[in-house]
């Protein structure tokens, strides 16, 4: 009996913390932060865009680490985290891919350009959707193992994708360059709070998803056992 498995989601406390931080971030994004002189209000999308982007990359990094840990230890714990993180990462990447073109249309006049960062994000989305497809397509014990293998391959591929697209072409706005950050101090603070809110959201969703997945697996394990006992 694996009595140790007691899936508990994030506590109420963290739910409230997340709520407060998100409200603060919204306040700062829409009221506290000054309006950008050239781009106008559309620039406020940037705070959501960067928050989601940073966490999407982080989520995929977590998938990579968890995949390595799974192959090494074969403990399903890591597999559950990898799966949860990949799903959240795909959602965050989708947010990035939706907010980017809206901003781009308003500022550049194009929905999309094939520049390295945009294109890499798009490819990233494809890679991790493929990762989720592998999970739903592989069966039994293969599922976690194949997913982990692809989680490693996919992550290793990302820098090469970025560099090859970079050599192919380049025009993303450089907000942060070698001389430092080209933003008003209020904007920087708002950005930091927004990134913090997204990061908290990531961990909150992750622990929720891990709890659901663990419970789901435990339920199907118990069901199988009952079936065997009933001789079905």
């Amino acid at each position, binding site marked *: 009996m694996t009595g140790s498995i007691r899936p508990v989601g994030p506590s109420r406390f963290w739910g409230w913390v997340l709520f407060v931080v998100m409200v603060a971030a919204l306040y700062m994004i829409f009221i506290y932060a000054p309006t950008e002189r050239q781009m106008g209000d559309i620039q406020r999308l940037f705070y959501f865009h960067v928050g989601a982007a940073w966490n999407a990359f982080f989520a995929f990094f977590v998938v990579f680490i968890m995949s390595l840990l799974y*192959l090494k230890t074969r403990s399903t714990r890591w597999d559950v985290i990898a799966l949860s993180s990949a799903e959240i990462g795909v959602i965050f990447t989708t947010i990035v891919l939706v907010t980017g073109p809206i901003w781009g249309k308003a500022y550049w006049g194009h929905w999309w350009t094939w520049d390295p960062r945009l294109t890499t994000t798009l*490819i990233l989305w*494809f*890679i991790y959707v*493929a990762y989720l*497809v*592998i999970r739903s*397509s*592989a*069966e039994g014990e*293969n599922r976690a*193992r*194949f997913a*982990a*293998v*692809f989680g*490693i*391959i*996919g992550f*290793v*591929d990302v820098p*090469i*994708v970025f*560099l*090859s*697209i970079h*050599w*192919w072409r380049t025009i993303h706005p450089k907000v942060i360059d070698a001389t430092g950050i080209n933003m008003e101090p209020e904007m920087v603070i708002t950005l930091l709070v927004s990134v913090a809110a997204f990061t908290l959201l990531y961990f909150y969703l992750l622990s929720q998803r891990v709890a659901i997945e663990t419970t789901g697996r435990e339920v199907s394990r118990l069901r199988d056992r009952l079936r065997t006992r009933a001789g079905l």
Partner: protein
Amino acid sequence: MPFLKKVWYITWKDIRSEFRTKETMTSMLIFALLVLVIFSFAFNPTPTETKRIFPGIIWVGFFFAGVLGLNRSFARERENDCLAGLMLAPVDRSAIYFGKVLGNSLFMLVVELVTLPVFIVFFDYSVRGSLVALGLIFLLGTFGFVAVGTFLSALATNTRTSEILLPIILFPIIIPVVIAVVQATASIFAGASWSAATLLWVKVLVAYDVIFLVVPFLLFEYLLEV
């Protein structure tokens, strides 16, 4: 038995079984030619248009045909439990991987060698540039594609949706090869065989090939567990 000899035996087995039926190669060839025909309907190529899109078209044809071949590579081993037999062979799992990579690369190179002249004729394309450079690019590009493709084919074949899964998981991963090989081919065809641009893409391809030979080599045993 030295490692390379074991690898060669696996490759030789694949070549022999392919030459008994010739089904994979035939499908790949016909498919590559079909892609050519479809493209000429889709783009209605004028001479200037052709000049621009030709390097891209041929590689799309090769990659699509390549996926067909890769799908068969491990699917064929499932019949009569050949994969189990292969795994029982007294060789390292990596020998199976390298053997398959070598075999699939040869199949794909043959397809490229046969269809490239046909592409050139049908698109009435005037080729310039050095043959050596072109050969090098074709070798590197094909090898990179096949190294990842063979690995993911082994993964896909053990899933419920094997044939449709492979392209979905393979194409996002080979984006660097697609960019590099098409750019390099374009710059060679434009007459700049050993220009800095060509060399940059050669470097990208070499780096990709090495990385995606080593990483699958390290991970391959996890795919063929029983």
